């Protein structure tokens, strides 16, 4: 039984240019993945690949001109894309929680942090306020904030980046979510603080038995904190599968290039299949989006790319998988 099932999701930005012509940026082009309870999925990709947009599409936080034009998002069997806003509001912040990248801008600067936690709990649970407050202190303690009672009275600007990220995690946990979406939870934090937050996240995921979706551009985070990985490029998931398998035998040329560019495998002057400008979303090439810069591209790559299952759960979208596998890691 899967908790979250995303199928063939397409999100477009529709706008008009200066000559009043309609312009469509195809930002997500048929994204499919699923997350089972208790599993952690890492979504990796470079700037503009559509990682954050995938999360926003899933929880219905898109703002015009972005909208879902096709596809479905099912959470415990319920379709989210067509759900009325009122009903969706009951799920968001309670059953699905989200932690975003910039902890400081995600907190209300004019409300003490404890009150923000209480407020979030009260929206979904109309119990006595004192109970919410006790629960808030418990959650602050659970995320390793020392002396929660006094920190609850702190203003957001008084917190360090690591502490603010802990507060956001506490906030996400307030209503015991089944799915936690963390969008670049440690980007911008120092490595030692990053280690604290990631270790904490792993403990919490196990303790509260949540499914987690971590969006990151850091392959180290994926390698050590995720069960499964989905690699995004130009609005598509080009490869997904169990972490160990994908790192050991990346099948898609883009994944191969990405893993080959990590410090662990990097050799100065080695061959580079990645690093060019990402494709223009207003004018995506036909077929495979990597085609214009892929060394293995052939005529067949103009056709739309079928998903091919290489082993249970390991899927790649490439016409030339056999050639790519033979070439191996760049």
């Amino acid at each position, binding site marked *: 039984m899967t908790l979250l099932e995303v199928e063939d999701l397409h999100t477009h930005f529709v706008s008009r240019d200066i000559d009043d012509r309609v312009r469509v940026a195809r930002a997500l082009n048929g994204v499919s993945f699923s997350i089972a309870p208790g599993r952690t999925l890492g979504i990796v990709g*470079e700037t503009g690949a559509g990682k954050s947009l995938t999360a926003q599409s899933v929880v219905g936080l898109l703002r015009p001109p972005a909208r879902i034009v096709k596809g479905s998002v099912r959470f415990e069997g319920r379709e989210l894309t067509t759900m009325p806003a009122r009903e969706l509001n009951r799920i968001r912040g309670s059953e699905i929680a989200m932690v975003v990248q910039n902890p400081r801008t995600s907190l209300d600067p004019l409300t003490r942090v404890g009150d923000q936690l209480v407020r979030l709990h009260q929206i979904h649970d109309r119990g006595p306020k004192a109970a919410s407050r006790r629960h808030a202190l418990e959650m602050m303690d659970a995320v390793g904030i020392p002396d929660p009672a006094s920190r609850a009275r702190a203003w957001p600007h008084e917190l360090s980046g690591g502490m603010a990220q802990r507060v956001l995690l506490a906030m996400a946990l307030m209503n015991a979510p089944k799915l936690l979406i963390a969008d670049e939870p440690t980007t911008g934090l*120092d490595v030692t603080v990053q*280690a604290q937050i990631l270790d904490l996240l792993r403990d919490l995921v196990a303790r509260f038995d949540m499914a987690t979706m971590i969006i990151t551009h850091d392959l*180290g985070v994926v390698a*050590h904190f995720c069960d499964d990985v989905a690699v995004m490029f130009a609005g598509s998931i080009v490869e997904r599968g169990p972490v*160990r398998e994908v790192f050991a035998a990346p099948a898609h040329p883009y994944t191969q290039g990405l*893993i080959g*560019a990590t410090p662990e495998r990097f050799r100065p002057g080695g061959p*580079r299949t*990645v690093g060019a400008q990402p494709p223009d979303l207003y004018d995506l090439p036909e077929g495979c989006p990597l085609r214009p810069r892929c060394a293995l591209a052939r005529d067949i790559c103009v056709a739309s790319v079928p998903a091919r299952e290489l082993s249970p759960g390991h899927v790649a979208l490439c016409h030339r998988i056999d050639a790519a596998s033979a070439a191996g890691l760049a």
Partner: protein
Amino acid sequence: MTAPVLRVERLSKRFPLKGGRFVNAVNSVDLQIAAGETLGMVGESGSGKSTLGRAVLRLTEPSDGAITFDGQDITHLPLGQVRPLRRDMQMVFQDPWSALNPRMRIRDLIAEPIRLHLRLSKSERAARTEELAKRVNLSTALLDRTPANLSGGQLQRVCIARAIATDPKLVVLDEPTSSLDLSVRAGILDLLAQLREETGAAMLFISHDLGTVRIISQRIAVLYLGEVVETGPADALFEAPAHPYTQALLSAHLPADPTVAVSRHVLEGEVPSPIALPPGCKFHTRCPVAISPCRAEVPPAIPVGAGHEARCLRIPDGGNRIVRKEPA
């Protein structure tokens, strides 16, 4: 042995605050870099690595200590006399978007240092500009555009072309790849490694990214609260870090390979304020192996290997190890 291009001795930088207090950004740092060598400087935010990078170029005035550049003491040289030396000492900044004048064409941006420092005719200058663009793998078709039309990786190539335009003896690179995507970063690192071979310039590579520093540097210096706590050859420092902070820093790094077991030692607490520095060893407030002398004595640099030294009082008694290797 040839004289180092850059030698820094007991360099400190304090920024005054109201009320007679100071932010102690850099505290008594010693380092040297030889021609053709890349020294990696790692540390977390607030460790003083950018201030140090700026101070060695006299972009910020050092409070104490001495800077010897190419055999000349430049610590107190009037800025008018430092300016001609800038031809031989260049810098690449973290954010290429704000480092380049948005209204200038790429061609003029690359030609600017040539115009300022080299006496070349107009046609020689144009030829050198194109040659520099080729050396940093920048398409000459981009030369007549403005920075807004280039990607981050391309802009950083422009910044590097500017930095090497005058064949400098020293290039300080302050987080040159931090704002770039992984695959773009790989291309810039390729370029830097290649330029170091070609030009023989000394490089000071400042970064918080341990993986990147290891690739590009021969030697590494680890900075904590404005002090160099450990220096050594890159491989020795990564394989046998001696200072507890270096060990914790390395253990916090996640290699992008799920088959490599990580034995982690997660540090408790946060970095103390550089306004009120702790006495003794600056790391004792977070150090899991601190003993009472650590709170009073400033540790000396203790050799732990060839060209490898660390400032920790626990090294002589062997109590400096904090991360135990767990079996994979």
